[in-house]
């Protein structure tokens, strides 16, 4: 289960701030949805289904991208 660090907030405009480090980021709308879903403690499979339901995209593309996004969240030290 991916856990987004505490205190991290994403604004509706896609501005993400990490108060622990002072780093800020911009996140595109689908990225925001994914972060929120992680915050709601949804599992990856569930998030993937939601993406497939909402967007015109095939499963393998969405899965690859989700995996990559998760790596980037880890790279920027935004998950525990």
């Amino acid at each position, binding site marked *: 289960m991916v856990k987004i660090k505490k205190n991290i907030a994403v604004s509706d405009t*896609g*501005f*993400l701030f990490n108060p622990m480090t002072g*780093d*800020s*980021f*911009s*996140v*595109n*709308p*689908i*990225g925001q949805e*994914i972060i929120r879903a992680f915050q709601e403690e949804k599992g990856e499979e569930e998030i993937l289904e939601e*993406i497939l*339901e*909402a*967007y*015109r*995209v095939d499963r393998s*593309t*969405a899965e690859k*991208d*989700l995996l*990559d*996004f998760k*790596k*980037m*969240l880890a*790279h*920027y030290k*935004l998950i525990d």
Partner: protein
Amino acid sequence: MKEKEMEKKSYERPVIKPLNSGLMNKFGTRTEYTPVTHIDGVSVKSLIEEYGSPLFVFSERKIRENIRDAKRIFETRYPKVQFAWSYKTNYLNAICRTFHQEGSWAEVVSIFEYHKAVSNGVPPEKILFNGPDKTDEDLRISVKNDSLIHIDHLDELYRLIEIAGEMHKKPRVAIRVNMDTGVYPIWDRFGFNYENGQAWDAINKIMAGDKLNLIGLHCHIGTYMLTPSAYGIAASKMADLALGIKRRYKKNISYIDIGGGFASKNTLKGSYQLGTDAVPDISEYAEQIAGSLLNAGFDTDELPYLYLETGRALIDDAGFLLGTVISNKRLSDGRRSTIMDFGVNILFTAFWYDHKVSPAQEFSRFTEDTVLYGPLCMNIDVIRENVTLPPLNAGDHVVVHFVGAYNITQSMQFIALRPNVVMIDLKGESHIIRKAETMDDVERNERIPAHLENFKL
């Protein structure tokens, strides 16, 4: 099902990007990732569907616009102007013929290019033959055809004098001159030097022998020259030689050929300004050249013709390379890299330019810094070390800009076959101007010794 698909939102990969102001895109502009969905009204998607990816696309409209603009700019500043299309820049016949239809002669640097010009229908007396490597046979052909021979070095000069004698014909010649124009390094490996007197040695040799008809002076001071004043200096020095010849030998030089070298709108690697902002307008070069020639002291009725061999500045922005994303990869340092279906094999100029790359479909405003790689399995195969692009998915298309000069002529058949080249005409119709290579094209000239024909594995 179909309807349900339509109700869904269009997809974009999730992206997160650090916002550190210190690392902002150094250009501070967004022009790079404004999508380019059409070229001359034809959609990129339909072009790729019809002709495959990657694909070179040339705009006939843009070529004609460029040469007409350049002619107007020079002709409004100087009364006698003649352009000659520099074949090496792009010698696809359809491209050359577009320039010839616009009145350009041909400038060639090898007998291969010479024959191409002849078979395109250029009258041989309107071919300027440059270059250091003309064989005796090449010289005989050009003498017989009365082409304009631009002599590059003393060995060529002596051989040509001999050949002219044998053929009982007086060839029309120019000498190539190199000089200090304040831009370094000086291109002094071609032609005769102005400052150290070599140019005069060559002129005196020609005039003393009476075997050659010296009617022109040629120079080509460099390529992608960002300093218009260098052309003012070059034109002055050429005029000085022409007037000196008039004084010493009572002979009028009928043309001064200033060569090529005007910068195109590309961005040189390492430059902190985008090419479109940093590069002088053709009018700035024209101002310098015309100014020097008009003020040099020629009698009005003896003004020499100005010949121009402009290459890249007339064709770069008329050429586009369309390509497709193969895959995205995360590098070990977290940077995104994108692998394209074209590499430096067909985009040779990626070695010296930061080519502008646009996505060919609409995106949101989110962007990511990306390394763009070609598909060649070689470390050198880098299209852009760092480019800001919206998130591209496998299968998405991009448009690479300003690729019209030197890529077609310098492309390599390496690892993959070379793709189709099409031209969009003035009515928006596309035509193949060079078909994609086939296995047969590549292997036609190979031979297999009998003992290597068979093997068992």
